[in-house]
């Protein structure tokens, strides 16, 4: 199964990446190559193999109590590209795409 350049553009949009026209074909080729290779998995006998649930299951749930990891607003905003009065600032949302 191959990836077309339309696929590349569609996925790129989902991932918020811009792929220049010039690179789209090369990328489609490279991705296709990897995915075709990934198709070798179809040769494996996966009878009785359920998807791995990986995290070791013995971690207890957390108590509902505050602890010391909280940051002050100053620290929270320290690395902010743009912040003011305790808020992070971003350019406006144009299309309302919140689900």
């Amino acid at each position, binding site marked *: *199964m191959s*990836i077309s350049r339309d*696929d*590349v553009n569609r*996925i*790129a949009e*989902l*991932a*918020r*990446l*811009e*792929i220049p026209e010039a690179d789209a074909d090369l*990328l489609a080729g*490279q*991705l296709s*190559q*990897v*995915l075709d*290779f*990934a*198709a*070798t*998995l*179809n040769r*494996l*006998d*996966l009878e009785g*193999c*359920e*998807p*791995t649930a*990986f*995290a*070791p299951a*013995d*971690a*207890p749930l*957390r108590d509902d109590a505050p602890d010391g*990891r909280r*940051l002050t607003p100053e*620290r*929270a905003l*320290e*690395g*902010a*590209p*743009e912040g003011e009065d305790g808020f*992070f600032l*971003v*350019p*406006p*949302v*144009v*299309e309302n795409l919140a689900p």
Partner: protein
Amino acid sequence: MSDALWTLSATALAARVRSGAVAPEAAVESGWEGPAARWESDVRAMVAVDPVARAAGAKAAAGGPLQGVPVVVKDNLCTTDYTTTCASKILAGYRSPYDATVIRRLRAAGAVVTGKGNMDEFAMGSSTEYSAYGPTRNPFDLARVPGGSSGGPAAAVAYGLAPIGLGSDTGGSVRQPAAFCGVLGLKPTYGRLSRYGLVAFGSSLDQVGIFARHVGDVALIYAVLAGPDDCDATTRRAPAPDVSGWAQGVKGLRFGWPANLWQAGVDAELVEGLEEAAAWLEAAGAERVRFDFMPGEYAVATYYLVATAEASSNLARFDGVRYGFRHADSPDVRALYTRTRSAGFGPEVKRRILLGTYALSAGYYDAYYLTAQRARTRIRREHEEAFRRCDFMILPVSPTLPFRLGEKTEDPLAMYLSDIFTIGANLAGIPGLTVPVGLTAAGLPRAVQLLGPEDAEPTLLRAARALEVHGDVARLDGRHETEFAWPTKR
């Protein structure tokens, strides 16, 4: 020369500092004054260097088993006293407000973070050529790669900047650079070292790993770092296995010999190294068990679906909103995301994000991601099956000796296939340890990989020790011996 502090093991160095014979500042600076002065400008192992921060760290060094010991930390582990960039432009200048758990534990034991090591961007790569800050070179041959993605810490430990390095291993990123740089590299059992503060790539595969030049040091660091962490729900609750018996020897242990894996496609000199290691282990009293094992191609295919899927999600947070790089003048938030991420991520990272997004996308989830997770279960079972017949396995780390810069960057798939022997351990969640076994005739490091079942770290360390003692671990030529001052026997 061999009295210089930087030549000492971490164990020996800490003992000197604790006894008061040596100040922590001296312990830390020794690697900078000697080896770094000679090597760093060529090797370029480090991305964050800060004499003030390391002096402060040395001054504050707690009393403990690692007092005064400098550690090179891969730049994807969060440190409050250095930037954490993951070798990416998108995190240029980023300062974490918190220390990763492993960093906290190191510091509590007295260790000092001596700087941040270079890496492939976001740990995606096998050569450290995908760093946004330029490649690191192999100290044994500056035209060759140190391996990746933890190339920086591996190279720094190899040339002597510090006796200990911390890296991360998702598909081999500690074990392979360890092999290429002639040092030990341990990937622990999944869940044994906390991932809190390790910038996530493949969450179900990532583990913090340890670089060192001595088996005893690997054991020491493991003992300090391993154990449950309340900040990481994927750590195991039971106490970590006890590795204090690392010098116990291998009498009575059985090691698996899956020779089918290296019948073709593995460098002859590496195969020689395997044979020698096997002979040493037998001489030390271990028994060889021959059997065939599942080829690694399936693991690679599985990995490049699971790891990229997880990564595509883990890297979504890098968006220019709360920290890191933000592309200027975006008219709206969507443009902000797209421009920031497109400018901030390198080509390999973008490739993997796209791959992972595709594997998870509507209509493809079952064929790709789900199938890969089922294959993963199969791979785990294969490993469990093999370990019913032996206590640990020996196999190559990489199919090739360290390759040249530029050799594989044109062909992503070829780069991915170089992980063919290391990926299985990440998928199965089991520990793997790279043990250097001398140099080739051309002076390049050779290594073997030891693989064990869950919590087999004690066994792997015992086997590594047997190789360290019985083998001529650092068969260095004259030049390297003086310049690296590598102890040949302990």
